[in-house]
């Protein structure tokens, strides 16, 4: 067994004796710092995974030591770390505890330098594991998660303990010359990065002073440049915290240590660095150290003065840093003849004083302190300069002068207990040390502030509530206190109540109207309120009068109506038809509802939103008409309704007419004063080809068209239609609905027939009435627009011919009616198109009606439409 491969032994579940032998065998062939080989790695792995869990708990101290010894290699440590990681994930706390005990054992038993002879790579690995904090981090993680860790291993997770361990290791190794300066520096460098620099320094430096100061110096010199700065900072912080905070700090000793460890240039650079904010005693010690090597020169002073006078620095550097700079400047000045003789320094001092005088608060005060300290004849004569604090600050110049260049004995630093006691004593006595005298807080200096403080304590000022605006009007009789209480309605019911109020208030109604559209639209797909109150709301809206002469009244009302028609077409469509045709309403109301239906149809047909805005705007609000159109129509439109209908007409008719006229572009006479129509054509076409889902198509017939058309017929049959304007509106609305629902509407055919019928029925009435004629022409144009020529020829041959006849007549008798003429021309053009292509079909259709007389000239005149058609 004794000669057996230790790895095989480990894997074969050895007893304690076999294990001991195998471990001995292994350690004989492996040095702790030897380069890892696969077998060693396997051995470590086997040891940790198979032996430790079984044997550790029951092993005696000797075996444990052997185990620790076997794992006390750099590989072993790495293995432990990996194992710990795995165990942590598996939450195997008992095994975690074993590994922690092993690690603790390794670090307790073996000093840092045990691995120093390893090659560079391994040494670096070791540094990373220990000083780099890898083991610390993992152990801390495990200990954090572990429910009950042993006291003995807890230090593994504590940074401070690690800092102490490393510090003492470095110190001891350095003293014993086990660690070379570069190796120690490597450790120190990483150890400084652990973050516990005070603890580290507290172990390291006292161990090396006073006898081994040179080694500390070497160690410092061996550090990398950045690490050197860190080290110096750590050293200075340690010094000032440990020794220089008492009442009589050993400044000379600290200066001696600094000058012994750090080179002059380095110290100077450190003390001048803007990021340095050291305590006053340390600054003084550093100055002593600097001065002792060679007297402070003007360059050094000027460097401080430049920063002190820098406007940006004055304005933006933290007050603490500015105070620290002043504490550096004043003792430095003490080492020069005052007032300053050197012209450059003189200039800088002047500049700093004037720059600081223009700033505020503490910054200004510091400038005055320096000013008065440098030139005794300079007196600012303000109260702030007469305080004890200011005197103490100014005395810093003398302090610097007295400090001089007296280096002390470093040994003075080796009595930490004493200084500690002193410090306690100093604290107890509340003896005013210099720093205490220089209070950082300028507030209690002035008695007025104290007074107002008292006042504030009794009667503190509360912040104002979120809104505390002054009154809207200076005149108390004009302030309206109600308005902020009005909230827009959030339910249709509320809206109804508001709009129907027997004593409406301007603000309330206005707000309700303003939000009506949004409210209705929100409820379109939410709740049943719209189903319940839709009709009622529509009635209310349609019946509303502009009692308050509200701006945008019609616009707001109309928008709400449109939203309503869009939201519940099946509900509101029949209602609109009934209302419009029953004669219950005034002409204005009918017009408004018809306009709403038209707008809703346009919207439902799914036009692009941007375009829709434009179109809808034109449809609804005359104010939104394009300027040039508005200029034309605003003159001859007297009422809002009138303008609205013009708007509708314009939006729907213009593209068609423009296209028609464009197609005919030849004769100049047919152009009607519109100069921009050519440029509009692409736009018009783009608008017509819209691929959006046409919601209207599904409901156009049942929702809008047939109720309206049906109502219309009832009306015609009953009382007849007295107002051509109204008739024109109905026809136009029907035209728009048809146009918007095309081409996908399922009952397009029926709608077309119906519309044709209505148009023909009104021909006689339209005679001599331009408005109605125009409306009829518009409807006809829509019909020709929405149907393919072939379909027209097949389905409505008779109507087509009849249309041609009537439109031709209209066209011929037209005297000077631009728009109408344009429409007529457009229709004739369409008919021409149909006739050219489907002459036979048309003829067939006509012949089937058996009326021969009228058609004889048809074929002959077909190409000659512009001249006119034969009259009967």
């Amino acid at each position: 067994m004794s000669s057996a491969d230790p790895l095989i032994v480990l894997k074969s579940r050895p007893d304690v004796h076999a294990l001991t032998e195998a471990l001995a065998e292994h350690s004989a062939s492996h040095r702790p710092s030897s380069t890892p080989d696969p077998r060693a790695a396997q051995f470590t792995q086997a040891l940790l995974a198979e032996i430790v869990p079984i044997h550790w708990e029951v092993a005696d101290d000797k075996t444990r030591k052997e185990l620790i010894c076997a794992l006390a290699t750099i590989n072993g440590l790495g293995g432990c770390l990996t194992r710990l990681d795995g165990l942590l994930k598996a939450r195997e706390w008992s095994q975690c505890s074993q590994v922690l005990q092993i690690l603790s054992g390794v670090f307790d038993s073996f000093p840092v330098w045990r691995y120093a002879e390893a090659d560079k790579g391994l040494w670096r690995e070791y540094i990373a594991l220990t000083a780099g904090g890898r083991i610390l981090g993992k152990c801390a993680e495990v200990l954090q998660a572990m429910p009950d860790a042993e006291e003995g291993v807890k230090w593994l997770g504590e940074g401070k303990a690690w800092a102490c361990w490393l510090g003492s290791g470095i110190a001891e190794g350095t003293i014993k010359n086990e660690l070379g300066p570069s190796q120690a520096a490597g450790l120190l460098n990483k150890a400084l990065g652990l973050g516990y620099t005070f603890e580290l320094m507290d172990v390291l430096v006292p161990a090396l002073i006073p006898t081994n100061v040179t080694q500390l110096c070497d160690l410092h010199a061996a550090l990398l440049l950045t690490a050197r700065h860190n080290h110096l900072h750590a050293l200075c912080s340690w010094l000032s915290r440990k020794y220089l905070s008492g009442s009589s700090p050993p400044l000379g000793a600290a200066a001696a240590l600094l000058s012994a460890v750090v080179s002059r240039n380095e110290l100077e650079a450190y003390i001048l660095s803007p990021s340095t904010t050291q305590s006053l005693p340390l600054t003084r010690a550093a100055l002593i150290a600097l001065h002792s090597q060679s007297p402070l020169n003007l360059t050094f002073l000027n460097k401080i003065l430049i920063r002190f006078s820098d406007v940006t620095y004055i304005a933006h550097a933290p007050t603490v840093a500015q105070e620290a700079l002043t504490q550096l400047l004043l003792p430095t000045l003490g080492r020069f003849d005052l007032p300053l003789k050197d012209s450059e320094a003189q200039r800088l001092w002047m500049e700093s004083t004037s720059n600081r005088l223009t700033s505020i608060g503490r910054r200004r005060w510091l400038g005055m302190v320096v000013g008065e300290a440098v030139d005794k004849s300079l007196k600012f004569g303000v109260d702030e300069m007469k305080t004890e604090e200011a005197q103490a600050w100014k005395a810093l110049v003398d302090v610097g002068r007295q400090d001089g260049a007296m280096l002390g004995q470093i040994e003075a630093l080796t009595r930490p207990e004493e200084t500690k006691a002193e410090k306690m004593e100093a604290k107890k006595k509340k003896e005013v040390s210099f720093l205490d005298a220089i209070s950082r807080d300028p507030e209690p200096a002035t008695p007025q502030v104290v007074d107002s403080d008292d006042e504030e304590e009794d009667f503190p000022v509360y912040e104002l509530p979120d809104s505390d605006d002054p009154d809207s009007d200076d005149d108390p009789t004009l302030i309206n206190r109600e308005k902020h209480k009005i909230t827009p309605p959030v339910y249709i019911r509320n809206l109804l109540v508001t709009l129907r109020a027997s004593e409406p208030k301007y603000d309330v109604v206005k707000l309700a109207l303003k939000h009506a559209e949004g409210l209705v639209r929100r409820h379109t797909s939410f709740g049943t309120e719209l189903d319940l109150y839709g009709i009622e709301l529509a009635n209310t809206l349609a019946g509303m009068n502009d009692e308050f002469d509200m701006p945008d009244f019609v616009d707001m009302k109309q928008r709400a109506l449109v939203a309503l028609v869009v939201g519940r077409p099946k509900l509101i469509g029949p209602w609109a038809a009934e209302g419009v045709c029953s004669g219950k309403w005034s002409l204005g109301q009918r017009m408004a509802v018809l306009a709403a239906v038209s707008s809703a149809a346009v919207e439902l047909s799914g036009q692009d939103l941007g375009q829709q805005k434009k179109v809808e705007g034109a449809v609804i609000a005359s104010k939104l008409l394009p300027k040039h159109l508005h200029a034309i129509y605003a003159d001859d439109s007297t009422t809002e309704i009138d303008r609205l209908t013009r708007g509708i007409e314009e939006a729907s008719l213009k593209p068609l007419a423009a296209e028609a006229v464009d197609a005919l572009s030849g004769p100049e006479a047919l152009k009607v004063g519109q100069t921009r129509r050519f440029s509009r054509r692409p736009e018009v076409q783009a608008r017509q080809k819209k691929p959006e889902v046409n919601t209207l198509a599904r409901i156009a017939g049942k929702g809008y068209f047939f109720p309206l058309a049906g109502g219309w017929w009832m009306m015609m049959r009953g009382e007849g239609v007295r107002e051509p304007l109204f008739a024109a509106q109905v026809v136009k609305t029907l035209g728009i609905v048809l146009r918007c629902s095309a081409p996908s509407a399922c009952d397009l055919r029926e709608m077309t027939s119906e519309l044709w019928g209505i148009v023909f029925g009104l021909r006689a009435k339209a005679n001599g009435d331009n408005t109605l004629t125009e409306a009829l022409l518009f409807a006809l144009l829509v019909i020709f627009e929405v149907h393919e020529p072939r379909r027209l020829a097949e389905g409505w041959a008779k109507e087509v011919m009849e249309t041609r006849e009537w439109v031709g007549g209209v066209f011929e008798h037209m005297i000077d009616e631009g728009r109408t003429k344009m429409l007529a021309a457009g229709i004739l053009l369409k008919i021409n198109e149909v006739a050219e292509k489907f002459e036979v079909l048309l003829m067939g259709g006509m012949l089937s009606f058996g009326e021969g007389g009228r058609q004889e000239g048809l074929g002959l005149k077909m190409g000659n439409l512009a001249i006119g058609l034969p009259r009967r």
Partner: protein
Amino acid sequence: MPSLPPPTPSYIFRGHASQINTLAVLPASEDLISGDADGFVVIWSLSTRRPRAVWRAHKEGLLKVEGWPGEEGKGRVVTHGRDNTIHVWEVPPAPARGSASLFLPATSRSMESSMRISEDEGWDGEVKGPPAQPLSTVLPVDGLDLPRPQPWKLCTLHINALNFCQFAALPIHPPTSSTLDEDKDQPQPQLMIATPAVQDSDGIDINTLPTCTRLHTNVTPTLSSNEKPGMVMAVALLAPTTLLAGYESGYTVVMKLTANGTWETVYDSKVHSQPVLSLGVHPSREWFVTTAADAMIAFHPLFPSSSPSTGSPTSEPAVYNTTHSGLQALDIRDDGEIFATGGWDGKIRIWRRKGKEPKQLAVLKWHKESIYAVAFGRGGQGKNWVGVGSKDGKISLWEVY
């Protein structure tokens, strides 16, 4: 300067069914008393935050309630209603802890001989003797017409309540009052009450309670500008011989009783452009404050050294524009350090006057409707509070300063 976050109310008393017109602190107790526009008076216990007593004191809305410390242990409340009456009620002090309501005294001092019991016929529920049943604690919101017994009514004074002007009271202790009081054999404490005159709303009547004797009738000022002052809007009695009054026209007047029994106007000032709404005297008696329907707070000097006609600068009022008009409610804390205004903007503002201009210390914002009443109270351990009554029928309690 570090400042505290905006204050929030520490408690809201809900229970009035209509707007709170007046609010007061009962002397020597931790009780708040409020009166609403329906004529109800509620005494709220500040320790339990529950009503201790609820009764309908007037047939119409309350104008003012005020505590009047009676003889030992006997709390009295003076209520002023729009039904043209002022009643004095006797309410026992706060009962022992745990008892929720007030029990009326089993035995009562015989006051009938010295006081004129109201002849008010239609006034139901007139208690002719000390009732045995406890006072109701059912709040007005729980039913206006529920039967609620009234406490023992000491006396009733008929006045003119047309103006919305709250009465002004001045307690007179028997030795000092003897010169004014006809009833010399009555050793009881008296209360001088100044109200708008019965004859004319422009004048002021001064009566004493509980004897209901009229001392002065229709006192009117003589303004230096010879204008008519209009209706009396606010009065204050500084001494039996000194009367302060604010008028509809915006005038503020100080009148003194001369030796020959006529009232002389010693100070008049028109700093307000709108009717004066409230008037408060600083405890130091060096100045008094008026607020009006406009946005101004006016500080008037008291006892100006020279007569107003000479226009001495010390007698000029100091005016501060709060930019929040309609400062209806006003109260000055008893130590004179701070005062509060409550306005139609629904906010209460706490002020401290040092020097000429007041400094706004805090804005108490919770009520969304106008503030009609504000009262300072003192709690134990420096826990002082401000009570605020609003048009919304709620009383908010703020623990500030």
